[in-house]
């Protein structure tokens, strides 16, 4: 299996990647010739796996909220990659802001206005894609910016980084499952009625 580069360290799920691309979609980058790979999972199974996984992100720990469903609703045949595009922008944006925040809080005289502006942006983009736990960590962070509490801000930064890494890995896993479904000729389930 090919490893997807990760910003947040190794987080590839332990379970082995079960489905592989069909012959015709095999690109030159494919390390193992696809012909040798056995398709061990049918599309229906993969779709169920995707639903279970997506469900867990919403219900179990609240990584995502209803806004993510809105993004999925806005994806259609004319914009098949909308969710991946927007979420990729979120990754880029967040990584830049986390770097800026790390730098800003490392200064002798911390500019809390600047810190707050960065956190405000991160809160906005996490809320726009439905990364609920990142958003909540940002809300707590902003309170300490107001108090000008450097130590608490540093702890919040760690918290935000951690939440960001978790949701990033979860989303990447979800997208991988989607790629496998599509590669096997299936479509991404649209029935997500489990989210109240």
């Amino acid at each position, binding site marked *: 299996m090919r490893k997807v580069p990760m910003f947040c360290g190794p987080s590839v799920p332990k379970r082995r990647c079960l489905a592989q691309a069909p012959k015709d979609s095999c690109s030159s980058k494919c390390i193992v010739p696809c012909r040798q790979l056995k398709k061990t999972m049918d599309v229906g199974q993969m779709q169920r796996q995707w639903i279970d996984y997506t469900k867990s992100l919403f219900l179990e720990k609240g990584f995502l909220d209803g806004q993510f469903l*809105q993004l999925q*609703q*806005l994806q259609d045949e004319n914009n098949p990659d*909308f969710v991946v595009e927007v979420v990729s922008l979120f990754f880029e*944006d967040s990584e830049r802001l986390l770097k800026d925040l790390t730098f800003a809080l490392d200064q002798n005289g911390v500019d809390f206005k600047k810190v707050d502006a960065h956190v405000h942006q991160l809160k*906005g983009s996490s*809320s*726009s894609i439905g990364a609920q736990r990142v958003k909540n960590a940002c809300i707590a962070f902003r309170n300490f910016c107001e108090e000008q509490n450097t130590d608490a801000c540093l702890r919040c930064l760690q918290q935000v980084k951690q939440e960001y890494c978790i949701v990033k890995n979860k989303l990447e896993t979800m997208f991988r499952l989607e790629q496998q479904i599509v590669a096997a000729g299936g479509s991404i389930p649209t029935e997500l009625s489990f989210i109240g």
Partner: protein
Amino acid sequence: MGMAAESQFHVLAVDDSLIDRKLIERLLRTSSYQVTTVDSGSKALEFLGLCENDESNPSTPYVCPNNHQEVEVNLVITDYCMPGMTGYDLLKKIKESSSLRNIPVVIMSSENVPSRINRCLEEGAEEFFLKPVRLSDLNKLKPHMKKTKLKDQKQGTVEKLEDLEVQQQQPQQQIIIQNEQQQAPKSRDLLQPESESHPHAQPTIEQQQQSLQQANNNSKRKTMEQGLSPETDRTRPRYSGIATVV
């Protein structure tokens, strides 16, 4: 109004965040609007054909004669919190401009600050959306755009007046706009910031009152308010906006 007509409505979306621009663009396109996005208030004004003649006196913008607005914009939707010119500043500039003030403006903000919401509505914003904006919010845009089309008729040559009586009044330099029957506004208090959804009728009334103030004719105003009653007999022609062309 069918889909074809609706798709002609053109929305200018202003947001400094790329993610949010992508999002609002998709939301609007999904709702069959034509969309232009820009990342700042000043670019929005530039697109609308408005520029400032004097940096030290930003309160006197004017429409650049050589940069006339080519594309009609039916509505501006803008983020509140932006570096440089805020959404509120942009709203004020649009409402201060004689050529742009009829364009409905909608403000979006991630923060639910009642004083901010009030300020924007008092300055003439049609709606205030909390971010992230959802598909259901966009349903509130359409009535404002229909209204703009009506106002455009009022400003330009009157093409679609169905009532002969109205046309006969033209020599007296009066143009009467017939309200769309299905949009019969309900009388409601202006500026109810607490109410989550602003009734479609509310800004209509507001603008009608503005028109009336311009007309400076109290007897007409009285007629108008009677005409606004939602229970009025629908078979009778009703005039809901009167303006005197100077």
